[in-house]
């Protein structure tokens, strides 16, 4: 067998091809995949946009933490695809220390995640300025989106899917669930194979998130009917679907949540206009 190295011109050629392949268009959808910077880390971003705009409202969907950031990807990708097929846009991203992003998940704070959401929003606005970009979130991502929207000014509409609006309690529950699943044999400081934040007690409680949401422009919560209700201001419309939250959320439930969220965006758009 030969032992060769790539010639520099081959490497340059490859890099050019990777750049070309970071965009795809077809079936009325334009896709972009890219990295953007946030708090010194390099985060992965993935944009789904309609080739032909039919509605201006677009959402950056903030993911949840750890296992949920991966296991709820059916919800996220179905939502993004539906948004693009409906003439709108959505952006997904991997938070610090997750997926294809750099960073140390355990050392990541709520402030880092809020900044990541804000930077993702900026990246989306730069790439597709024709849309009106707002923040949405799944599970813990809803708390992060709420905080980020509050930091960005009053009156921004939000879209929450099965929100977890008490971050400190979210991590406590995650750790408990992981211990139950592993019959108590799990390693300390991690849940379902993912590190937990080093100081979960420093994460905001329900009151702090509620305060942030009070300054928002309301929005929509899409949730499963049997899930424990999360306190949201009256300015939020609730869309409840059959079923209840479980960590292994079946794909049909994930798809139903995503479909309902995409329909909710159309209603939200009408109310805003």
């Amino acid at each position: 067998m030969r032992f060769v190295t790539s010639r520099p011109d081959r490497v340059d050629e490859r890099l050019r091809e990777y750049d070309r392949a970071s965009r795809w268009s077809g079936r009325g959808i334009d896709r972009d995949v890219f990295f953007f910077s946030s708090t010194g880390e390099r985060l992965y971003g993935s944009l789904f946009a309609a080739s032909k705009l039919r509605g201006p409202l677009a959402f950056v969907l903030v993911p949840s933490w750890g296992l949920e950031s991966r296991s709820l990807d059916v919800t996220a990708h179905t939502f993004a695809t539906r948004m693009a097929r409906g003439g709108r846009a959505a952006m997904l991203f991997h938070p610090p220390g997750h997926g294809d992003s750099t960073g140390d998940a355990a050392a990541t704070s709520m402030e880092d995640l809020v900044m990541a959401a804000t930077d993702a929003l900026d990246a989306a606005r730069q790439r597709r300025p024709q849309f009106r970009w707002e923040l949405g979130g799944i599970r813990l991502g809803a708390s992060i989106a709420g905080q980020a929207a509050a930091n960005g000014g009053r009156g921004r509409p939000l879209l929450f899917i099965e929100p977890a609006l008490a971050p400190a309690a979210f991590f406590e529950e995650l750790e408990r669930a992981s211990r139950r699943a592993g019959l108590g044999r799990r390693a300390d400081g991690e849940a379902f194979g993912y590190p937990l934040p080093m100081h979960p007690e420093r994460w905001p409680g329900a009151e702090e998130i509620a305060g942030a949401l009070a300054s928002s422009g309301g929005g929509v919560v899409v949730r499963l009917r049997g899930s424990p209700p999360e306190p949201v201001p009256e300015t939020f419309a609730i869309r409840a679907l059959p079923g209840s939250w479980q960590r292994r959320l079946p794909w049909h439930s994930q798809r139903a949540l995503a479909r309902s969220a995409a329909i909710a965006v159309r209603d939200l758009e009408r109310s805003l206009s």
Partner: protein
Amino acid sequence: MSDHPVLVPTQAGPLGAIVTEPEMAAVAACLIVPGVGGHRTGVNQLWTRTAWALAENGVVVFRMDWPGFAESSLAMPGQAKRKRAIAEGVAWFRARTAELPLLVVGACAGVGAAASMAARDREPAGVCAIEPYLGPLPRRSRLRLRGIRPVGGRPARRQPLDPRTVEDLSRAAGRAPIHVLVGERDRSRQDVVDIAQRLGATVEIVPSVALHGHATTAVQAITIERVARWGREILAEVAGR
């Protein structure tokens, strides 16, 4: 090293993938094939970090989400055409790294596909099979209904062997050395060791752990370290020929 996100065009739709280029001149290419329904990033960035570790040694690494999953969600080929979509993705990568020998890393139910890729490649240098799942693959529709298996879930013991997976491994063994990595506590260990011996593969049993599901950060670190070491050994072997 540098990561490059790409959307590989296939007949079924775009496959979301990441190519990791080493800082130095590349000496080999590598495919990482996660288990069925697996994401290219793996549990807690397992495959992301494995790619980075291999790139440190001069390997260009390609890992993609399976068609219909995550960033490949727009590629919905159906069961019959899934293999073709994966083959198109691999062909795209190999067209850009044709001058380099190929390492293939497969995990769990991705081992069959990994072996098949190695068997068909022009210049396979080695296959690393991590806790291979040798039973028949569940139908996609059943996977969808069940949702994602929880981390740490274990396959049933003594599954009937899937003849296609065994054949793929057998064909790959005829073209490149196969190295099997399995945990002492993995339920499939005995089946895996039996097959590995039949194929003349080397077997590395990691003591006191189950690799399946990579349920803890400690187990993830073991896999990354062992795969990186296997990569270095293969590269040294290739250089010595």
